[in-house]
């Protein structure tokens, strides 16, 4: 499933670039990304307007309170909710350009003050999870591919198993074993690298299953290439051939997968954040959804989408640099 969506990831943008320098192509891709980001914000803005109920009730402390009509009118004006939706939308976009995400309905302070401190912990978590996932996946690939039927089959089975594991269950089991029973890592909190290991691992294990499935098949292909045979003929050891020759080719498809992975890690980080009581964007998002705090919801969705789109763009550009074959003509179907 993951692979087929990946193939299409690269085929999706219907760039009609036939000739033109790499810079031109990159600029075009960047413009496309910017368009997607704008469309994503617009879509979210209007979809969230569909939320039943008046945002005023969320601002003025839930359905139980009974504010006077004057207060309601004053607050409505304060948050700009008395304006037509289109005006609200345009002013939201304008503020967004200056880095202003509005004011939280619940906390009554600028959104950035709430979610600003949450960004770094989530990025750290996602980053370390990606590193762990790659280490596990590469270990699997190097140790089991082309090492006979039994090891090969075992590697395959473990990958499918890993990929099916729900992150939150992995997290809980890791917490039981390594935090509660063995006491090697803290059960909860955000206190340096040690507190980051278990949450990152809980996200990394299922992801490692996905990455390993992709690197396995490309590693198999690479091992069957003539250049591997010639390297062996030159007397290189098996390990040397695997690491210096085959691995380079096997990693390339994984690069695109990583772009997808960063996005899904940032958005699924919430699970690890909840289990290990860590601060983070995901937790702010879930809290905001429960409390109907639309400005925070919108801001977190925007940030996650922005990170995802940016990483995809960077990987796309990197890909063109690393593998010039992807450059010319034909991404249009």
């Amino acid at each position, binding site marked *: *499933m993951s692979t087929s969506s990946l193939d299409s990831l690269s085929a999706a943008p219907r760039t009609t670039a036939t000739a033109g320098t790499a810079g031109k192509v990159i600029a075009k891709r960047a413009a496309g990304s910017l368009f997607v980001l704008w469309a994503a914000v617009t879509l*979210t803005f209007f979809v969230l307007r569909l939320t039943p109920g008046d945002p005023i009730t969320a601002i003025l402390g839930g359905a139980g309170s009974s504010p006077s009509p004057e207060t309601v009118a004053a607050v409505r004006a304060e948050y700009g909710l008395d304006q037509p939706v289109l005006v609200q939308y345009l002013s939201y976009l304008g503020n967004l350009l200056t880095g202003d995400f509005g004011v939280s309905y619940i906390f009554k302070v600028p959104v950035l003050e709430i979610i600003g401190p949450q960004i770094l912990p989530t990025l750290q978590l996602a980053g370390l999870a990606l590193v762990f996932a790659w280490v596990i996946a590469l270990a699997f690939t190097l140790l089991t591919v082309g090492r006979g039927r039994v090891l090969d089959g075992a590697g395959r089975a473990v990958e499918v198993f890993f990929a099916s594991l729900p992150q939150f*269950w992995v997290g809980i089991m890791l917490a039981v074993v390594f935090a509660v029973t063995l006491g090697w890592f803290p059960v909860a909190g955000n206190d340096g690298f040690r507190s980051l290991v278990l949450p990152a691992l809980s996200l990394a294990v299922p992801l490692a299953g996905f990455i390993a499935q992709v690197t396995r098949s490309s590693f198999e292909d690479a091992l069957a290439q003539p250049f591997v045979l010639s390297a062996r003929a030159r007397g290189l050891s098996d390990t040397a051939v695997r690491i210096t020759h085959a691995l380079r080719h096997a990693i390339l498809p994984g690069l695109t997968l990583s772009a997808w992975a960063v996005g899904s890690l940032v958005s*699924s980080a919430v699970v690890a954040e909840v289990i290990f009581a860590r601060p983070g964007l995901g937790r702010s998002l879930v809290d905001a959804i429960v409390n109907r705090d639309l400005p925070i919801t919108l801001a977190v969705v925007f940030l996650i989408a922005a990170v995802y789109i940016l990483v995809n763009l960077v990987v796309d550009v990197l890909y063109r640099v690393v593998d010039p074959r992807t450059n010319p003509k034909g991404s249009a179907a």
Partner: protein
Amino acid sequence: MSLTLDPTTTAEGGSAAPSSPAPAPSRAGRLVRNTPIGVWIAAALLAFLVLAAIAPSVFLRQDPFEIDPANAFQSPDGLHLFGTDQNGRDVFSRVIAGTGQSLLLGLAATAIGLILGCALGITAGVSGRWLDSAICRFVEILFAFPGLLLALIVIAVSGTGVVTAAIAVGVGSAPGYARMLRTQTLQVVAAPYVETALALGRSTSHILWHTIVPNVARPLFVLVTLGIGQAIVWASSLSFLGLGAQPPAAEWGAMLADGRNYLQVAWWIAAFPGIFITLAALTTTVVGHHLQRRLEAEV
């Protein structure tokens, strides 16, 4: 890639040869021999889960909702196979009772995702450049909401609950289905038999319903099997976050969330629902992959 050189099919039996020299093996016989043991195990476990979902009373030994504070936090033993939870409820019974809701949630979410995906993907695949590229753009925008994000946006609008969780997961998986179905449709549209149908003067709607849809639908079955596992994991994630099924319910994700609070004293409350989520995801994936390989081998 899926060149499965199965020795059982090539080496015609080390067993005592059957009476007739080379009978065309029956369909059932071929099925048995072409299916690896792992797939059989997965299919058997899946059958167990389905049975538990349809007729939980077959396995139930205690009332999953009966509160018995005197017997709280019992570790797994002969009487309580999976132990008891903070209220003395039997975890095994609760896990079994939750199978129906958890599987149904995954199934409903997959169905919703598939319907939306078909509407977008097949339409894009059969229509002209304009509509096609418009739909592609739209799907591309939806892809900007990675992982659970799209589902979370749906929850933000429609509120928490089991039904909205199913819809949310369905919407979240729709872009992926749409993209795959579009590719599939494009392949079918370009196939010679469509050209033949056109040459025979069949009407567009006749070709759409009698030629394109059946040929797109076959691989769909495989997609569904593969998709259900993911949907179950996503839906239970939402319940785990408190956005789907709510605590008293015996839903796996909600039970896990419940058990999280007692990790220090009773690991089994959280462990067993998680094992069942994994089991559901794993068995559907293994069976789905096998069906996919068979389908590819046939084509």
